[in-house]
């Protein structure tokens, strides 16, 4: 008696391939924004609980990255920017990545829920589900508004951080959510301006592919004009001090200048590359300033007592 089975070559994937599946660069921004959400929240969080929450959020972000790469392996292989990812390169199969992602997702959500609190746990679960199902499976290949709506997933970590510290959600972390939400479109559209051929080849309906360069540059400016004042609102609403307000206004001003240059650019992509690079720095500086503002408030408040 004999059985017929498909031959599967034993894996040669190394640890680095699995780390790559977790999109470490995206993860670092997620962890940083979640850390800010956690530290600006009122009250005291025990460092062990705080670190556990951040670890779970990091693993959850990694899970979302692995599931995204598993589903998008076909289009990743067609784009220069993503062709070297572990699945298109043949190091990991799409099934292995899916199993890896689902295991990490389940572990991170349940661990965050049980060890920290269930508001944070459920928010993390919702974020992973939103990124994988709503953005990756549904919106990414069907509408140029993919990164606008899908950006909500990347904007949720400060709310999860806040929820990990307080067990609730308040206006302040929602403001941080809105800042990242309005930051995402100009950030990705600036990138897509000089990767249009990549997206077109893969059939991803990014704005420059569907509506053209000119319309994309106009959209970048509109969203940046909304983003810059939004970045200042934590100060305007009294959640941060004037140092933060001034810094936010300054970097917001730079973003507007860059968006105007992107709008004015007729050929080449110098301005859009600068916009893409500075937008990462913008978000980092904004959240870092918020953290410094909060920490200095705590230190000086403590000294004044």
């Amino acid at each position, binding site marked *: 008696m*004999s*059985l017929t089975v*498909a031959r599967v070559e034993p*894996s040669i994937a190394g640890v680095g391939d699995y780390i790559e599946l977790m999109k470490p660069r995206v993860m670092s921004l997620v962890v940083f924004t979640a850390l800010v959400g956690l530290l600006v929240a009122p009250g005291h969080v025990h460092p062990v609980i705080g670190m556990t929450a951040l670890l779970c959020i990091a693993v959850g972000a990694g899970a979302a990255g692995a599931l995204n790469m598993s589903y998008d392996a076909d289009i990743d292989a067609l784009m220069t920017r993503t062709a070297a990812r572990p699945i298109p390169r043949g190091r990991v199969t799409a099934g292995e990545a899916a199993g890896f992602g689902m295991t990490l997702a389940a572990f991170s959500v349940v661990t965050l829920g049980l060890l920290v609190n269930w508001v944070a746990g459920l928010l993390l679960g919702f974020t992973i589900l939103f990124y994988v199902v709503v953005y990756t499976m549904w919106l990414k290949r069907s509408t140029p508004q993919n990164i606008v709506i899908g950006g909500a997933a990347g904007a949720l970590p400060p709310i999860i951080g806040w929820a990990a510290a307080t067990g609730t959600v308040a206006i302040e972390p929602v403001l941080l959510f809105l800042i990242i939400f309005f930051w995402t479109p100009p950030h990705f559209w600036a990138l897509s301006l000089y990767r249009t051929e990549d997206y077109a080849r893969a059939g991803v309906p990014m704005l420059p592919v569907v509506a053209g360069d000119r319309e994309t540059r106009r959209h970048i400016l509109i969203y940046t004009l909304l983003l810059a004042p939004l970045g200042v609102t934590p100060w305007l609403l009294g959640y941060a001090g004037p140092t933060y307000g001034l810094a936010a206004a300054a970097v917001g001003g730079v973003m507007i200048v860059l968006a105007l240059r992107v709008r004015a650019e007729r050929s080449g992509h110098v301005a859009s590359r600068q916009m893409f690079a500075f937008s990462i720095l913008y978000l980092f500086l904004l959240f870092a300033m918020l953290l410094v503002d909060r920490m200095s408030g705590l230190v000086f408040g403590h000294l004044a007592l």
Partner: protein
Amino acid sequence: MTTVSDPVDDFTKRLMGDLPPQRGVKLTEQQLRARRARSIAIALALGAFVIVIFLVTIVRLGGNVLTRPM
């Protein structure tokens, strides 16, 4: 696609001495190295998970960690 023999059949034959003792997939040096690295990473991750659970349990229990019925 490839045809392989039934493992139960093989087991019986091996017991009867009809088959050589070693069969199956032979891993290459590279595959062995990769598997070993993955196994170590999984072990470290599980170890870290145990430590996290332990630390959070101690933190959650606080001073009550020493309170137990005699």
